[in-house]
């Protein structure tokens, strides 16, 4: 079952530095939804507010009508899974143990046969079955990412959030993973929310695209509606040509002509210092 996510006048900040405010979003349909936008506009922050990793500074976020702040971490975890972009494990366990972590919200102290079956199944879905007993630290960045996606799937959530799930994957696994996520979303009638920087990958597979620009949501709709030359220029300050391929926009960049102003940095929230982010950013240790 898909979860109804509703952001009401939502705001988030790290210390005194406001990332965005007055965001209103309603996600109430199953499918693959991509969040696009330049670095530092608060795409990950939006995900953090959904599963209470970060408490909103203003407004509220509702999961199926209940304010997340009223829900316990475990209640949220039964519905919402989160796949980080990278994982810095100091003491890594085996790949299988790592995927079994995803069963935490559903299982007791000991691992059941059902947990094992689900974990093994998810590992195989991500083509990592043969690495089940390898140490997590012995894998490449792309393999890490595939294990973490398997771990997210093993949690069997209604809402799966992935932070740049394809950033380290080879082109085969980019397509494979996106297709898998889209199909799972449709088959299980669930919502898959991803943060993505590859506009064409997002365009090809997404049912809905949400574009963040510095401090606000700039556009929201289908790929055809959202991915226009204007949007890309206004959000990223990049000149691109759009062609339609298979009924979806295909974005073409040019090596030398797409960027006019080499000093322009889009989307950077200039007032946030690194220390502020480290203090408030839950990803940090």
């Amino acid at each position, binding site marked *: 079952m898909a979860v109804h996510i509703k952001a009401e006048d939502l705001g988030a900040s790290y210390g005194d530095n406001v990332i965005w405010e007055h965001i209103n979003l309603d996600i109430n349909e199953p499918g693959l939804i991509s969040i696009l936008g330049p670095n530092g506009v608060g795409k990950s922050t939006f995900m*953090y507010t959904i*599963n*209470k*990793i970060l408490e909103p500074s203003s407004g509220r976020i509702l999961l199926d009508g209940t304010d997340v702040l009223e829900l*316990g*971490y*475990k*209640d*949220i*975890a*039964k519905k*919402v*899974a*989160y796949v*980080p972009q990278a*994982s*810095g*494990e*100091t*003491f*890594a*366990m*085996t790949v*299988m*143990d*790592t995927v079994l*972590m*995803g069963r*935490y*919200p559903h299982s007791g*102290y000991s691992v059941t*046969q059902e947990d*094992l*079956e689900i974990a*093994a*199944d998810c*590992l*195989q879905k991500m083509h990592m*079955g043969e690495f*089940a*007993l390898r*140490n997590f*630290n*012995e894998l490449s960045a792309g393999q890490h990412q595939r294990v973490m996606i398997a771990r997210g799937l093993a*949690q069997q959530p209604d809402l799966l959030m992935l932070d740049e799930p394809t950033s380290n994957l080879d082109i085969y696994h980019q397509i494979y993973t996106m297709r898998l996520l889209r199909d799972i979303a449709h088959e299980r009638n669930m919502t898959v929310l991803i943060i993505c920087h590859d506009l064409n990958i997002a365009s090809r597979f997404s049912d809905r695209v949400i574009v963040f620009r510095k401090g606000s949501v700039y556009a929201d709709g289908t790929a055809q509606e959202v991915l226009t030359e204007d949007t890309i220029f206004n959000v990223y300050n990049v000149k691109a040509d759009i062609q339609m391929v298979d009924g979806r926009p295909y974005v073409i960049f040019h090596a030398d002509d797409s960027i006019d102003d080499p000093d322009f940095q889009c989307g950077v929230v200039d007032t946030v210092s690194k220390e502020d982010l480290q203090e408030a950013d*839950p*990803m*940090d*240790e």
Partner: protein
Amino acid sequence: MTKIKYRNMINNIALKLRLSGNTISKLRSTGGQSASAMIIGQYRAYKYSKMLMLLAVLIFCLIFFAVDIALGPYDLDFIKVYQLIFSRLFDWDQDMTTPMLVVWNLRMPRVLEALIAGIGLAMAGAAMQSMMKNPLADPYTTGISSGAALGATLAIVMGITLIPGGLGTVFNAFVFALLPAGFIILLSTVRKPSPAMIILSGISLMYIFNAVQSYIMLIANPDAAAAVYTWTVGSLNTAKWANIPYLLEFSLIGGIVLMYMARVLNTMNSGDAYAKSIGINVERARIIVLVTISLIAAGIVSFTGVIGFIGLVGPHIARMFVGSDNKILIPAAGLMGAAVMLLADSLVQIVGTNVPIGVVTSLLGGPVFMFLILRQKKEVW
């Protein structure tokens, strides 16, 4: 000749196993067992092998225990020691001869104290490393050892004790050892208790404690200063039966809590954000583990003085054998810590009882640890 014969035999068995392995995989690929079932089977076998490792460490630990109890300054041969132990066990009310008093009232508490302290410190160390995501962490990371040392110094040099009587020094050390944990809990009401914050507050407290202690040592008379110094390096010479129940309490209850938290500790290793996302209240879990570790370490330190290295090295050696799953690592680390501790105590008994065990654990553990790090091929950290 026999050597070659045995080698051939082993090779033959290996060959047969490999063939049968091939046949099985062929059978599997043509149907029957699914790939998932195969992964699960392999995973179960892997976990089983780790349990065997745990058993092996337990046996090691028991052997060292058996050897250690037979050693001591009083001249008794190995067999005689066991005769005395069994004779006492079967006839509890008999009159105690001098050798029996030596074995029962001097050696037994000493060896038990070594065992329990080793288990407690190493379990606490394993939990601390996982919680802090830091291979350099040990049970004393939050400043427990310097707190305990200051408490003991106040008692020994200035006679300032929180409770009167024989346990004055012990109780002082215990309370002062818990101060850092209390301080962190206080801080956590204002800021989230991140590993960096815990370590840094531990370091700052350590400097403060050390400064006060150094000043007291400077103004103290030489005898008292020497007593403090002996206390600081850690020793089992003061071991007695009366201490054992306290030590056991802290290690046992603490160990059970840490085992219960093992799964949470595993997930904390993947980062706070992820741990929260699967339903763990990271801040609360961190405080629970921190308080447990502090109680274990403070309980042990206040009786034995500061025995270093066990809490750092025990978990790392165990990690090389059983991996980093805290469910197996915590008990394995405990047993490994106990084994190192008993081995160190055996050496103390051979070399001379005036050598403090804290010195031996470091002198012995350092090179062994270095050797293990250099020869291991797989990345554990």
